[in-house]
């Protein structure tokens, strides 16, 4: 996209003219509609104005008129901004967050919870510090920017990988040492809800699970299979859904290490035997996250299978491809086949009959490769390319191979 800023004199004029019927929409356009975790429509005070290049908040009282002043392109966007440091010296209480740390890094879910922890801290009397407890090897470089005031990093090998019991023992120690006001866990399948439930059971606390609107007083959580909102007093232990809070992005935090000593981990009852090697083509269709699906528009089947392997996709098929004997029956997607939930569904040469569409109703992103721009699959797809399947698959395979090579070189460079 071009970085040249173009003026829109009409807009500027509207922004200047407070009596113009569109004035409000132009002047406030930046703000959008924001819903707080309490579900209420809020004006986000942080969004009034913006953070200036020097890291200070600036409220633009000119309501966008300032644009006029920025006539030329600046490199301000590239400048490292130094955010103000949030210091907690002698905390009165702690709120402990146990992030999932998928792949050793804080996930978006983790960051939301850290943000929420700060929102909670600010409404509780006294000064609170947000503590993150991280297990195993950590690749995270920016605990400070995510809102971690204190960090407990337990990197001993017994916490590595799948070790819920060892981690639980550590958490009970932390409980004894810090007596946190709240324990926050992501309610996730990455271990958060397991660990949270274990701690709650051990401490005899009644946790809130699937919580999504949380203040220091009240918590709303989902119940009855997600069909119910239960409003209750905020308990000590919470397992939180995604987007339960806003991640920290305007402050830096100390991320001071806290040492926890004297944890003695006993032999776990659950012995981790490691991850199974799961071949993408062996993943059940219903669980696959990326499906390359073939229809009547595939003429080169060898190429199709090769493409699936190179892209690391699970294979799917339309009924016609199955009927014609090119694909096995358990690969059929649709009303009489499997209903899939893939995040990306790449439909190659599939016209998009209703019965097929039923099976991909829950797919996030559908991509179509088809010669017919008018077919129903193209109407459904987020991205459609019109052209011969064989040609486009060939190009795709080239790209995938090039990328693989690239990342290999990168690795060997790093080594």
């Amino acid at each position: 996209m071009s970085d040249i800023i173009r003026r829109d004199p009409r807009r500027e004029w509207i922004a200047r003219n407070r009596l113009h019927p569109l004035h409000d929409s132009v002047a406030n356009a930046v703000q959008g509609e924001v819903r707080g975790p309490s579900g209420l429509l809020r004006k986000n005070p942080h969004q009034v104005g913006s953070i200036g290049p020097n890291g200070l908040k600036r409220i633009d009282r000119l309501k966008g008129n300032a644009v006029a002043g920025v006539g030329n392109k600046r490199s301000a966007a590239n400048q490292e901004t130094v955010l103000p440091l949030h210091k907690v010296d002698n905390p009165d209480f702690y709120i402990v967050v146990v992030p999932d740390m998928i792949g050793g890094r804080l996930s978006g879910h983790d960051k939301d919870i850290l943000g929420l922890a700060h929102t909670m801290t600010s409404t509780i009397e006294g000064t609170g510090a947000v503590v993150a407890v991280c297990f195993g090897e950590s690749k995270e470089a920016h605990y400070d920017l995510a809102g971690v005031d204190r960090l407990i990093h337990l990197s001993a090998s017994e916490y590595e990988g799948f070790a819920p019991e060892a981690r639980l023992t550590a958490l009970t120690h932390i409980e004894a040492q810090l007596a946190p006001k709240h324990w926050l866990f992501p309610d996730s399948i990455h271990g958060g809800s397991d660990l949270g439930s274990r701690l709650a059971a051990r401490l005899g606390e009644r946790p809130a699970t699937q919580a999504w609107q949380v203040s220091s007083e009240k918590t709303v959580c989902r119940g009855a299979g997600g069909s119910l909102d239960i409003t209750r007093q905020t308990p000590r232990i919470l397992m939180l859904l995604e987007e339960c809070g806003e991640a920290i992005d305007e402050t830096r935090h100390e991320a001071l290490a806290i040492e926890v000593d004297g944890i003695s981990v006993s032999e776990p009852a659950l012995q981790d035997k490691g991850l199974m090697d799961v071949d993408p083509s062996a993943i059940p269709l219903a669980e696959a996250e990326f499906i390359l699906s073939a229809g009547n528009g595939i003429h080169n089947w060898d190429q199709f299978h090769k493409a699936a392997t190179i892209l690391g996709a699970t294979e799917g098929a339309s009924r016609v491809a199955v009927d014609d004997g090119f694909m096995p029956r358990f690969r059929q997607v649709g009303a009489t086949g499997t209903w899939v939930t893939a995040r990306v569904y790449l439909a190659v040469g599939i016209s998009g009959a209703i019965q097929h569409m039923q099976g991909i109703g829950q797919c996030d992103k559908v991509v179509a490769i088809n010669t017919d721009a008018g077919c129903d699959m193209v109407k459904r797809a987020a991205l459609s390319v019109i052209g011969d399947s064989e040609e486009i698959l060939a190009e795709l395979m080239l790209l995938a191979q090039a990328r693989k090579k690239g990342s290999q070189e990168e690795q060997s460079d790093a080594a």
Partner: protein
Amino acid sequence: MVIDWLPSILIVVLLALGVIGALRRISLWRAGQPEKVNLIAGLMAMPGRYLNDLHHVVERDKYMSRTHVATAGGFVLSMVLVIAVYVFHVEQKIVAWLLLGALVLMLCGAFFVFKRRLNPPSRLSKGPWMRLPKSLITFALTFIVLTLPVAGVLPEGFGGVLLTLILSVGVIIGLGELIFGMGWGGPMKHAFAGALHLAFHRRPERFGGGRSTGLKPAPLGDESHGVAKPSDFKWNQLLGFDACVQCGKCEAMCPAFAAGQPLNPKKLIQDMVVGLAGGTDAKYAGSPYPGKEVGHAKGGANNIITAGLIEADTLWSCTTCRACVEECPMMIEHVDAIVDMRRFLTMEKGDTPNKGSEVLENIIATDNPNGYAPGSRTNWAADQNLPVIKEKKQADVLFWVSDGAFDMRSQRILRSFVKLMKAANVDVAILGDEERDSGDVARRLGDDATFQSLAKRNLATLSQYSFKKIVTTDPHAYHCLRNEYADFDTEGALKGVEVLHHTTFLNQLVQAGALKLDTFKGGKVTYHDPCYLGRYNGEYEAPRDLLRSLGIEVAEMERSRFRSRCCGGGGGAPITDIPGERRIADMRMEDVTATGAELVAVGCQQCTAMLEGVVEPRPEVKDIAEILAGQLIEEVH
């Protein structure tokens, strides 16, 4: 002299053996479950049923009907006379001449049977059936020669001992096949069992031009549900199986067989016979279930059918299209038997294949097969301004929307129909969210418990309102409401209510001049008879009348009306989806294409879905309501 007496003795002995065999056969049928039948009335009605109803079916094949009349008529007459002459020694010449006449008639018939058997079509069974014409001829010739002296044509004692011996062999062969074989399971069994089957048929309403197509309710709450073993059938169902002549008319019509799915209705009935008598299918000499070898099936009256006699896939291949039943000269009820056995698989074994269990679970939990929110049933009509009967309490016409309400394609049909009703100012209302699945699919999949629960709840809803007609665009719901709900309608919710298919209703409107329609200017049009509208309910004319009213001359397919080939969508077949070599819908589309039509009109959302599921290019598929709505001249007020 003993030799002179030999033929008479043989006749008596064979007759006696035949009677013993017949009694044994009867005892096999009696292993079945009791079913109340009026024995006397049935026997009295039997000749009439044979001459009218059965003959009516046989008459579709003129060659065979004449052959059969000659052979069977000649045989019955000559057998009576043979007994008179040779057992009771009625010595009048005239009787002997009569006998000769009957025998010659039979001989002519037998000759034509022989001719047909020279190069038999594949649907006919071979094996013992190939020998039947020879046995018939032997019988006729033997008794002709035997009777000539009695009639005075040849001198008494002609030919001496040798001829008598030869003739005795002929008597043994002829009567062995025709009388002994009748009781002991030879091809001639069909005459004996067939006659009794006509007398004690489970659906006597079918005789005299009537129609009886609704499935019988399954009793619930017993030790077992459905038919697990041959002895779980009603006795007269077992009798019915025994009546099969292995003519293969059913096989020739069966869409599943043609598609290479593992079903052959003739073999199925024969396997039932194996089951009721015990043994294996090694002697079966007809077409197998496609893809399955003959000779491995074993069964007995008290053995589980699906454990060795018939594979479950065979039962699940059936689309319940009733083409076999319609075609069967012996009026055997294949569909009843198949659904009875499915009931066991679903209600006792929990073994409905493929998406079956999911669909049933959805129906139980949401009252529709795809598990949509019941509260969204009326979403399609948000812009239709249709009154809901809950608010009106009464209407002339209650529009039964059916589960098409959830399906975008079917909604086009629903909207078209609403448009037409509005144009004709019909006082109509819908049940809205109070409507539930009719239970059709659940019932055909063998889950009668769920069907009955739906039927009762639907009836309870219907009984709260008053209306004169129920009209529906879905022939399956139409069939349930019209033919199957009566068994559960204790409150009389449907009493005095006319249940109509939308084509019938629209035809009434058009005939009454309530709809102004433009002539249709598109290309050639053909019409596909939905099974549940045609064969199940006898409505062949209204859809054609409607098309005619648009000026369309229907280019009929070779298989149309009562011989219409199923689209493959009935009986839950698309749900159980048993693999074959072809798709039934593809074959039907070939039938359509063969007429050169550019548009195929249908009267069913299921047919629409099935035919539109055929890969393009293919003719367009439209419901009659859609075609009419397209030609509607809307009055501008």
